[in-house]
């Protein structure tokens, strides 16, 4: 995870200071800034292929295309593993008539439930380090959005929802986009950049 | 009064025809033209011959209803025209019933109807008597507007293409009803 080579002076860069906050104290302006910082976005298709990658801040270390592909594939695998290792809790009251029915392996599977019943196992959702936080959002069709943000960032949820919305609008409604293929939609890039700029 | 109504596509193909008589003043709604039944094509001749005049009037009068555009005196046939914006033309030929005194040379079928025709003419003062009176124009306008509504509904159908014959029996019923109501 060495994509983010984040120089410290960047977050405190003077041109970002005071743009938003009337507060003058260093700490508060720092907090204000970090709310907005989105470093980069990666979209992985359901087969684990990289279909979109973009940086939103200058000064990030560049990876080669191949490295990005490897990163996407690796994350996809890790995500699948985390989903399968979700702990399963044994059920207290095993419904005896169901268990009694022979010849099926229903008892073994229905004998457990996930810690949060009703919610399917989702896999890795956050990965946090000193310098950044990775948020993963998986759509119902298996597409994964990886968002790299500042660890102090508050409303990742909002950002993620908006990105998903833009993706649904400008990628999925584009007749020239082929499913599971790399995203080359100029309108998506434009609106994504414009929206993030509007926030930062 | 007898009517012959036809719709022509922008390329002059007839897409709908109907003949009917007046229902006003005790009329029975059956067309009785001055031609024998074997010569009904005369109506079509007369209507189509008025197309030149319609096409001339089309570019000087911006209205959709062009009123009475042409008369064919030998048959006492009056033509009123209505243009849809998309180029279809509604043409209505109306022919007042034959006067009893000129009945001599006509055919047996219409002379039999002589008395009936004269009462119709006498009782329905406004429309039948004078094909060019303002009342008639107004009645024809109302009739045309009603047809136009049905025509737009036909044209909006995804299965209808411009220039296709209108075969819907419901459309025909609508036209008959409009004729009964206004003419």
């Amino acid at each position, binding site marked *: 995870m060495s994509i983010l080579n984040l120089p410290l002076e960047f977050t405190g860069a003077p041109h970002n200071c005071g743009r938003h906050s009337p507060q003058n104290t260093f700490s508060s302006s720092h907090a204000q800034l970090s709310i907005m910082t989105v470093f980069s976005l990666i979209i992985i298709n359901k087969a684990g292929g990289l279909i979109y990658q973009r940086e939103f801040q200058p000064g990030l270390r560049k990876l080669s295309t191949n490295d990005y592909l490897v990163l996407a594939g690796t994350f996809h695998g890790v995500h699948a593993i985390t989903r399968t290792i979700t702990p399963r809790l044994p059920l207290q009251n095993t419904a005896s008539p169901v268990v009694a029915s022979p010849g099926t392996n229903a008892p073994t599977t229905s004998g457990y439930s996930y810690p949060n019943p009703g919610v399917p196992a989702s896999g890795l959702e956050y990965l946090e380090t000193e310098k950044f936080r990775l948020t993963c959002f998986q759509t119902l069709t298996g597409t994964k959005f990886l968002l790299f943000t500042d660890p102090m960032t508050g409303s990742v949820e909002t950002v993620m929802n908006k990105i998903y919305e833009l993706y649904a609008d400008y990628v999925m409604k584009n007749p*020239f986009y082929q499913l599971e293929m790399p995203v080359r939609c100029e309108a998506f890039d434009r609106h994504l950049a414009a929206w993030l700029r509007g926030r930062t | 009064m007898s009517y012959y109504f036809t719709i022509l596509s922008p390329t002059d193909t007839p897409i709908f025809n109907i003949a009917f008589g007046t229902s006003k003043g005790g009329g029975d709604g059956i067309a009785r033209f001055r031609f024998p039944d074997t010569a009904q094509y005369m109506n079509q001749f007369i209507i189509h011959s008025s197309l030149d005049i319609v096409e001339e009037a089309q570019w000087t009068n911006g209205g959709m209803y062009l009123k009475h555009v042409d008369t064919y005196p030998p048959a006492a046939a009056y033509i009123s025209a209505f243009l849809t*914006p*998309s180029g279809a033309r509604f043409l209505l030929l109306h022919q007042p019933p034959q006067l009893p005194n000129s009945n001599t040379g006509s055919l047996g079928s219409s002379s039999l109807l002589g008395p009936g025709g004269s009462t119709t003419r006498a009782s329905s003062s406004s429309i039948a008597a004078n094909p060019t009176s303002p009342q008639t124009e107004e009645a024809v306008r109302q009739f045309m507007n009603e047809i136009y509504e049905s025509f737009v509904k036909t044209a*909006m159908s995804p299965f209808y293409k411009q220039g296709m014959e209108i075969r819907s*029996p419901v459309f025909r*019923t609508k036209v008959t009803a409009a004729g009964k109501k206004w003419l």
Partner: protein
Amino acid sequence: MAAPRHSAMLSISNNVGTPQSTSSDKTQIAQPQSPAQTPGLRVPSNRKTIYDRHLNRSRNAELSRASFAYLFAEMVTYAQRRVTGIQDLEKRLNEQGYPLGLRLLDLLFYRATSTSSSALSSSSTSSSPPNRPLRILALLHLIHGPLWRLLFQRSADALEHSVSPDTPNEYMITDNDPLVNTYISVPREMSMLNCAAYIAGVIEGVCDGCGFEAKVSAHNQPTEMWPSRTVFLVRFGDTVMEREKVLERQGVK
């Protein structure tokens, strides 16, 4: 076997509408007189055909923009099959829009007459019965204003006449952000393509329907502020220009 299925199908399509045709119309249909009983004619179970539904019912109804976007995306994909090039694709989109233009024309005038309000109030002095456009300018105002409002709920952004003396038959209608192109990003290798060729087809249908033979094409003219700005170039035929001169001499407006 077919009958119940059919009636079920029609009831779906009909229970959307509210019953509001006049009672006299209904009795006309219901009576088994006249050719309404043609064999093979299938009437909905509630005896309401398209002729019994009011044309203004959906006048102020709103459509889902997303549904339209998906539909249009499929239309483009469909048109893209076995095309030989960008021009061919634009031609197909144009052909898809053309019949829509013819239909909209009639609907537009019908709605203007039936409400007798100023739905068609272009620059010309339109009294309650609207006039068919006789001159080019009246037609273009019809497209720029009422037609655009019917389709997109706003007027087009500009209407210009070609400044070149060689092409007096060329007019331009500008839309800063065509609705059909909202979600479309054209790949770089097809950068000449503009999917608003569909709208160009609609305009062409309207022009042809009014008796103004014309060719309409859509062109990209992006600006900094409006990246999908589109210019619809309307080229009228020679016969139209000749007639225009005659009408001008006659003082027809």
